[in-house]
Structures are given as structure tokens and as C-alpha cells.
């Protein structure tokens, strides 16, 4: 009998401790001295569809759709956007996106990096074809979005923010442009052996 009492007591203490942790997290979100308070707190990330400002909360089908938090809970964590690292999730096999509606087609990744120099001390942009060709076919971008020719594509962040060029996807279905270093990753101090407007292997 006493053993049962001990067990019940232990379970009750555990429950109360769990409830307290949840309330501490909720209180923490409102704490003005919370670490890195300028970023969105975890509780506000991936809100329910009826509250995300995108879906019509009065839509009849909204209760049928899976909640993002549930869908993303088992995927690798990212640092922005919907806080999922989709590349890592694919590399780890957590997701297996179908490449084509035609059976048997596989992606054809290409290891080709393009470095675009920018003015000032902002790091240069490194565009990795490999990461993109895991998801996309060449004709998704070429030539409709970008001509596959050096010097033929003038680009600016203003255009990207307005949804052109890279902005067709980034900020909508790929990570947002608020994460500068995801693209501006080639430091000026990283000298390459390539001459300007040249290629290196």
C-alpha cells in the first residue's frame, strides 16, 4: 500500500513540474529581458492556419488541413521562415519530394557555383546550383527567369524583395531574404584563384 502511495506521489509531482515548465515557457515569451527578444518567440512561429493571416479562417476546409506545427515537428530545425531546414530534411531522408509527375524521373544535381560580387563590405553572393537542382529542373529558371549567360542578368535586392528573380521563390516557398548570410556568404577576404569573370575548377 505504501509503495502505491509513493508511486502516486511521484507521478503527481512529475505532473505538477511539467505544468510549471509550460507556464514558465509562456511567461518567458513575455519577459522583456528574454534572450534575443527581437526575434519571434517560439510560441508565435508557425501559427495555426486560421491565425496565420494567409488562410481564410472562415473557410470550410480549414479544419481538414494539417497544422504546420504538427507537420514540421519531425523535420530538421531551421533559423528563419517556417523554421525548417528543408535541405537538411531532404538529405536526412525526412522528406522525399517527388521530382516529377512522370514516373521514374530523378533530379540531376549540378555542382556549379556562381559568385556574384557586390559593392561595399557586404560579402559576395554564392549561388549553389547543386542545392537548387536537387529540387528544380533547369527549365524552371532557364531562360524564363535567368538567362544562362554571363552578364545577361542584372539583379538587385530591390527586385528580389519585390518578388522578381530569386524573389519568385525566396520569401514564398524558400527561405526569406531577411537572412542575409544565407546568400551573402562569400567573404571578401576569401580570395579565390579565379580571375574576375572567369571560371575555376
Amino acid at each position, binding site marked *: *500500500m*505504501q509503495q*502505491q*502511495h509513493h508511486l*502516486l*506521489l511521484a*507521478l*503527481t509531482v512529475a*505532473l505538477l513540474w511539467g505544468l510549471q515548465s509550460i507556464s514558465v515557457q509562456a511567461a518567458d515569451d513575455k519577459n522583456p529581458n528574454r534572450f534575443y527578444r*527581437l526575434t519571434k518567440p517560439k510560441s508565435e512561429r508557425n501559427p495555426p492556419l486560421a491565425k496565420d493571416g494567409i488562410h481564410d479562417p472562415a473557410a*470550410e*476546409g*480549414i*479544419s*481538414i488541413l494539417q497544422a504546420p506545427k504538427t507537420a514540421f515537428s519531425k523535420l530538421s530545425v531551421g533559423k528563419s521562415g517556417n523554421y525548417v531546414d528543408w535541405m537538411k530534411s531532404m538529405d536526412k531522408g525526412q522528406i522525399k519530394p517527388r521530382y516529377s509527375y512522370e514516373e521514374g524521373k530523378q533530379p*540531376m544535381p*549540378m*555542382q*556549379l*557555383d*556562381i*559568385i*556574384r*560580387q*557586390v*559593392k*561595399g*563590405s*557586404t*560579402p559576395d553572393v554564392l549561388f549553389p546550383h547543386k542545392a537548387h537542382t536537387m529540387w528544380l529542373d*533547369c*527549365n524552371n529558371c*532557364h*531562360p*524564363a527567369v535567368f*538567362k*544562362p*549567360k*554571363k*552578364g545577361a542578368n542584372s539583379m*538587385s*535586392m*530591390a527586385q528580389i*524583395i*519585390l518578388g522578381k528573380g530569386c524573389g519568385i521563390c525566396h520569401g514564398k516557398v524558400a527561405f526569406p*531574404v*531577411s537572412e*542575409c*548570410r544565407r546568400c*551573402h556568404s562569400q567573404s571578401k577576404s576569401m580570395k*579565390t584563384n*579565379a*580571375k*574576375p*569573370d*572567369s*571560371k*575555376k*575548377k
Partner: protein
Amino acid sequence: MGIPSQWFFSQRRSRWLYAVWMCLFLQPLVAVAGSPDDDQHYQSSLKLVERLLTKSSVAMAVAQSGDSENDPNYYLQQAKKAHAAGDKKKAMEMLEKAKKAMFKAGKKAGAGKSKQEKLDRDYQKKIESAEAMLDALKRIHKEKPRGEEGEQLEQQVSEKILQAKNAKASGSLTQAKQVADQAFLLARQSVVNLRDGDTLVRSLNFANKEEEYRYELDRNDTHKMLVTLLAKDKMKIPDVKKRVEQRMAKAEGFRQQAETEASARHFDKAVELLEQSTKFIIQAIRAAGIYIPG
């Protein structure tokens, strides 16, 4: 044991703890057994399926086709009967079948005009991509000559593109698309093989100061947009708003001076002033607590 221990481990205390735990364990079972939410889910699914079967564009296409095979309405009626009989699981299954049957019927019915239009669009896109890849292949062959092999490859791709265009002109859209696909795949494979492992550098070389001025204008506009994009929420705090606005005012001042100099074609000076303006915008963003490079 002392008095507090005896009280703690009394039977009365145990009964109370048992009651708490039974409530905790039983509550989810009650939720699973059936709650107002399940019925709401069924009702919203039912409304959706009814609309799909009677009012949607798919429904109209199916009605026009006159195809009654695998009638979705049959499943809809089965769903209603099952729900009325209290079998919610079967009701949801039947609704799901109604939806699938409707989409299947819709695909069959739509295999007419809209399919042709799509095929045409796909063909256009593929032939443009094949031509772009062929151009790219020719440029790469200039950098990395492959002699006769390269020429033969270019010839093959060109022939396939021409074949595809001829098929389209003669009205065989399906064949045109297939050949365009082949041309594209051939060109793409060659480009991938030649370029794999390369790093290309697109350096920033301006033909003249005017070009550099245009670049700086774009850069300045971009950074102004970044203030809205990154610091919008932070601007609700009065102190932050004041700091940001002070710096933005300085940036705007430099920008206007730059535009005045540019209108007098003093692009050297205009570029310097725009650089100053952009620096203040970056300071404004950082004053809002957001670090950006630059």
C-alpha cells in the same frame, strides 16, 4: 514516521490522488470516443464535397461530358446514410471516396481543350529551354573546345529542335513536346557534364561612373526596402522609431544631394553621396537592433 508523514500517506490522500489520475487518463479517451469537433469536421467536409460535386468547375465539366462511371454522388449518398446511422468513420471514408471519384471524373472530362492548352504551354516552355541550353552549350564549347564531338552534339540538338518545331507546325503537339523534351535533355546533360565542378565569378565592373551611379541607386532603394522588411515590428517601440527616423532623414538628405549632382552629370560626386546615404540606412537598420552586413 511523524504526524505529517502519516497524513500524507493516509488512505484519504491516496483516494484523492487516485481520483486526480483517473480524470487525467479518462479525459483523452472521452475526446477520442466522440466530441462536438468530430461532427464539425464531418459537416465541413460534407459541405466541401457537396460543393465540389454540384457547383465547382470540375462538376460542370463532368456534367458536360455525360460520363456517369464511378458516380461520385453514389459515395456522397453513402456518406450521408452512414452518418445518419452513427458510423462516423464510414461517413468520412465515403466522403473521401466521393472526392477521389470526382477528381478522377474531372480529369477524364477535362482531357479536351484544357489538356491541349497545357500541352501547348509545356511545349513552348520546353522548346525555349532547349534553345537556351543549346546557346549555353555553344558558349561553353568555345571555352572548352571538344572538337568534332562538340560540333556533332550541337548538330544533334539543333536537329531535334527543328524536328519539334516542324511537328508543332503540322499539328502533332504531343510528338512536338516529346521531341522538344529529347532536345532539352540532350543539351542539359551536355551542359551538366561540362560545367560540373566549376565556379564562375561574376565580377563587378562598371563601364563608366554613370553605370555605377545606377547601381548605387538600386542599392540605396534596396536598403530602404530592407528597413520596412526587417524593422517594421521594431518601429512600434518609440525610442527605436526615433533612432531609425533620425538616420533615415540623414540618408534622405544625402540621396537628394546625389540626385542633384547626377542631374548635372557629376556622377563621381553622386556615387560618393549615395554611398553615404546607404551607410546611414544601414545604421538605421542596426539602430533597430537588426544586424545586416555592409
